[in-house]
């Protein structure tokens, strides 16, 4: 019997008990749906995490100044100035000693208000070096845009580069290039428009698209290089708020991060810093992903086991009910293997139909989960159905059909023709 004939035979037998056949596949449908939906949500989560990590730059180590808890303040001088965070000395030391660091980009929050007309805004101004654009994975938007240049700090005409979101808020639909912004008591000419495609943040804090960047030299010459903020009658002094260390290659990151932590522990009396290593986050995200995969596989395996037993059950019932048919077929010349293939094909067809329905249900479930989680908020779950996951789903349903169909089909093939023929 060729494949086509077998398919026709199988189709005819299955359509005879359409409802019963479909009910029998329910376990497979749900199992496969769970697999597809979880794969989609897992994949979405993975991509989201990867994207967030990568938008910070996998080859970066980011050092952030953190104000230590009040109780730990040690008054070293008689002044009321509290010093903390990354110092000029730290930057110089790292630049001199850390040979695996390709770029070193300090970032200072200017802490001066940016005015829009008469009103102040919450747009933050930062002062940094020309390599900032590269380490933050930002790109320039307008063709006329340029970023900070090494010579910018030395000219009298202060310039700045504006993030796209800040530009929209400051200038609306007007062309930002060439406009002037008031920052504190100085005015800056906009020479560039930049964008972080991933909507990244500096050290997880300042939104890159909502800042204004100026050269470090400009800020120091205007405001003395020390950013002072008044709080409870005390002044604070922070040399740099952030320091980007771009490693020469990703493999050098763990050792560099280790050395950096050791150096900071030894030179800083208090923990007034935070070391962020996106590469480590990436690794931990991958570990989480592996755990997720194991859990998901177990759930899928259990549903498919239950579904497969359902299939085996219905096939055994089918075979019992159709014992006489088997006898007739054997009397008409069917070999054992013809019977075996017929019933095996039936169970594989059943599980494949279940797999197809399950894949559809899984896609719908994933989409629904995404939609529900996004209701009310702009962000939420993301579901990504990959073609690989669909291939896996189909393969798994076929394998389930073979696994759980073999025993019933074997039983059917082993029936004695005469006994089967006399079966009522």
């Amino acid at each position, binding site marked *: 019997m060729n494949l086509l*004939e077998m398919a026709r035979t199988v189709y005819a037998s299955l359509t005879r008990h359409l409802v019963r056949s479909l009910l029998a596949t329910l376990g497979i449908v749900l199992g496969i749906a769970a697999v597809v939906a979880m794969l989609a949500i897992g994949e979405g989560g993975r991509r989201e995490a990867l994207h967030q990590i990568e938008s910070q730059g996998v080859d970066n180590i980011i050092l952030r100044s953190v104000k230590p808890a009040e109780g730990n303040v040690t008054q070293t001088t008689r002044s009321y100035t509290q010093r903390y965070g990354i110092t000029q000395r730290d930057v110089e030391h790292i630049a001199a000693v850390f040979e695996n660091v390709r770029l070193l980009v300090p970032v200072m929050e200017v802490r001066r208000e940016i005015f829009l007309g008469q009103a102040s805004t919450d747009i933050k101004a930062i002062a940094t070096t020309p390599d900032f654009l590269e380490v933050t994975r930002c790109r320039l938007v307008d063709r006329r845009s340029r970023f900070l240049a090494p010579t910018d700090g030395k000219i009298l005409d202060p310039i700045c580069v504006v993030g796209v979101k800040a530009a929209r808020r400051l200038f609306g639909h007007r062309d930002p290039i060439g406009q002037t912004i008031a920052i504190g008591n100085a005015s800056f000419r906009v020479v560039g428009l930049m964008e972080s495609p991933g909507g990244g943040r500096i050290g997880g804090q300042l939104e890159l698209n909502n800042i204004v960047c100026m050269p470090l030299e400009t800020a120091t010459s205007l405001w003395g290089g020390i950013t002072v903020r008044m709080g409870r009658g005390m002044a604070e002094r922070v040399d740099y708020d952030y320091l980007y260390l771009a490693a020469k290659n990703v493999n050098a990151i763990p050792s560099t991060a280790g050395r950096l932590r050791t150096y900071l522990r030894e030179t800083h009396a208090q923990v007034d810093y935070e070391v962020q290593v996106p590469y480590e986050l990436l690794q931990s995200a991958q570990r989480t992903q592996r755990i997720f995969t194991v859990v998901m596989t177990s759930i899928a395996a259990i549903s498919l086991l239950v579904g497969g037993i359902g299939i085996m059950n219905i096939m055994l019932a089918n075979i019992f009910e159709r014992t006489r048919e088997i006898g007739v*077929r*054997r*009397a*008409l*010349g069917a070999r054992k293997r*013809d019977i075996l293939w017929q019933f095996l094909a039936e169970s594989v067809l059943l599980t494949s139909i279940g797999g197809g329905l399950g894949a559809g249900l899984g896609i719908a479930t994933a989409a629904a989960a995404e939609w529900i989680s996004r209701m009310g908020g702009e962000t939420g779950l993301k579901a990504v159905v990959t073609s690989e996951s669909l291939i896996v789903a189909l393969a798994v349903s076929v394998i389930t059909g073979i696994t759980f169909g073999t025993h019933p089909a074997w039983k059917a093939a082993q029936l004695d023709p*005469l006994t089967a023929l006399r079966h009522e």
Partner: protein
Amino acid sequence: MSGARLHTPAPQAPLIELRGLSKTYEAGGTQIFALRPTDLIVKHGAFLTVMGPSGSGKSTLLNLFGLLMRPTSGTYLLEGRAVSGLNDDATSAVRCKMIGMVFQSFNLLSHLTILENVCVPMQYAGVPRATMRQRAKALLDRFGLEGRYGSRPTQLSGGQCQRVAIARALANDPPVILADEPTGNLDEKTGLEVLSIFQELHRSGKTIIMVTHNPAYRTYATQAVTIHDGRASEA
């Protein structure tokens, strides 16, 4: 259409030869003969009736002929070839190509159309689809079922069902047709119609072996076997 024979028959060999063929079963620790050792020769083109009371061993003999049962002892030669000791696959092939079976209760597959039913033996013989359907239609036409190809067995009368079953038995053009009380489920008139089909097959050269209760059918036979208590005797 001669169908693919399994081997070249020996020229002088009878179609069927039984040599001391017997079947026993065990009941309460003793061997009971369902069929006592039997010698029988059935020539090409014979019409053999097998008669006897219920439980006498008629069906056993027919099932042995149809290779649905293995004999306890003896030899069954079909066209000169011993077929009683063949393995399952070879036995299936013999059933498929050399023997056509017609049952009392028709045994049509109810979820298939009558055309598909006639096709079943040809599927197992590996006949190409187009040839298969063409031949099945020709057979159905021959037995007055033209235009009913798409009907299900449940939509047909008993006589029509048995005609479909006969068409199915002829699908691979086997030399032997085994019929187990083919008119047993039919009224007298329809029974005679079906019997006339067997006569026609006989005339066209088929060898017919028919188990029957009806002594009247004896008159159509060229050879008759009567069985009492597993003892077969030619009359």
